[in-house]
């Protein structure tokens, strides 16, 4: 009985492989229909028609041949057959269900056997948390971190469509707001969660300061925390320029000017921030690079230090 199931499984899998190969060969060899014939885009955002890959005709199923729909039918059909096979197999072993170990548990056990994660995780998970620590004012830092994760996810979503050049930045944000599915929602979340992050970080810092939790042996934790606070503000400052509207442009001009009036290093700071003597496309490029590469890396590194030290030293117990 067992061999029959195995044969069906192998047959289904090889069918998928053969058809995927056929579809691949066809995709390379077949003449591509000219996409300009089948699509007319009239949005505000300037799509280059000769480069458009015609996603819409695939959604509309305007196929020019039989291979793609057939391939899909067989692919999804085979997936369905494998599912059916699983159900049938499960039903056939129902008698021996007491020995059954759920598949996620088995996968975890398999990984654990190789990486020995539980050895590493057990002391982390088993660490007791005192009852006095379960109060809302100990949540503020955690909420800041959670909002940072939200910023990371929504930021990646926005980066898919954002173009960091003066000629295209503004139009690409209009595109995100008007055309992209849920684009305006993601931009709204990114905008407000940035503000929330600053408020929460400030509240967290005030809590730590008032309770005196920065004192020995937690001085370096305070230092990494202040670094994270500076990073949060730097994120806000660099992110504000990216829409490239009047407000963004002039706020950055004024903001970098303040840096420029520091004695001795002022000019250096100004040129470093602007990439020249005025706010140009170079400023936009470096603000974008800072916003999506440099600042996240520093932030993640500081977060690591911050969290390791909290684990090692624990939260300060108030008097």
């Amino acid at each position, binding site marked *: 009985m067992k061999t029959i199931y195995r044969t069906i499984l192998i047959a289904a899998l090889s069918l998928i492989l053969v058809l995927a190969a056929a579809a691949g060969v066809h995709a390379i060899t077949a003449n591509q229909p000219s996409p300009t014939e089948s699509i007319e885009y009239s949005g505000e955002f300037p799509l280059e028609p000769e480069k458009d890959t015609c996603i819409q005709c695939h959604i509309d199923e305007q196929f020019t041949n039989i291979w793609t729909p057939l391939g899909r039918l067989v692919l999804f059909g085979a997936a369905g057959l494998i599912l059916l096979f699983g159900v049938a197999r499960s039903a056939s072993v129902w008698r021996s269900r007491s020995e059954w170990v759920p598949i996620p548990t088995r996968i975890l056990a398999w990984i654990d056997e190789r990486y020995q994660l539980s050895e590493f995780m057990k002391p982390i998970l088993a660490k007791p948390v005192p*009852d006095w620590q379960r109060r809302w004012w100990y949540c503020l830092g*955690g909420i800041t971190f959670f909002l940072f994760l939200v910023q990371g996810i929504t930021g990646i979503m926005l980066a898919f469509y954002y173009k960091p050049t003066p000629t295209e930045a503004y139009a690409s944000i209009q595109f995100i*707001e008007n055309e992209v599915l849920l684009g305006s929602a993601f931009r709204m979340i990114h905008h407000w969660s940035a503000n929330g992050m600053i408020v929460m970080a400030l509240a967290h810092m005030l809590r730590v300061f008032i309770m005196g939790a920065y004192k*020995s042996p937690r001085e370096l934790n305070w230092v990494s925390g202040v670094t994270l606070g500076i990073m949060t503000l730097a994120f806000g400052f660099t992110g504000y320029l990216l829409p490239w509207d009047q407000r963004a442009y002039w706020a950055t001009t*004024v903001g970098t000017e303040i840096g420029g009036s520091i004695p001795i290093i002022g000019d250096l700071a100004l040129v470093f921030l602007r990439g020249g003597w005025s706010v140009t496309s170079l400023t936009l490029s470096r603000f974008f690079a800072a916003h999506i590469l440099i600042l996240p890396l520093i932030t993640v590194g500081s977060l690591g230090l911050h969290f390791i030290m909290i684990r090692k030293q624990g939260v300060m117990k108030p*008097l």
Partner: protein
Amino acid sequence: MSENNQEKEVPFYPDHVALEAKVALGVVILVVIIGVIGLFAPVGLGASADAMDTPLHVKPEWYFLALYQLLRFIPKTIGATSPVLAVVLLLIWPFLDRKPDTSKKTTKIRFWLSFAAVLVIIALTIWGEVS
């Protein structure tokens, strides 16, 4: 917090993780609500940037507004240097204030100190917003 339950402890997993998950869920709900509002009332954009056209009132974002307002009244050099010095002071603060706390009195002093600082910042921000 009451003194009598100080000895009580809960395991980090699953008890404390569950509590943190509830807080995270609350934040997620808030974030989703903000996203739904964004679908109907997007953040929006101003006019496209124009280096030739300086607007009458240039204002930074609210979290730099207090500093910006301060800079209107003090000389530019001091105004630009003081935030840098303030950040450096904040960074090395634990190495300046090293005496361990012995009573609640120091906590109270720090509370009123930060209360005053926050009040000044809020006042400057509102002033900067309306002016």
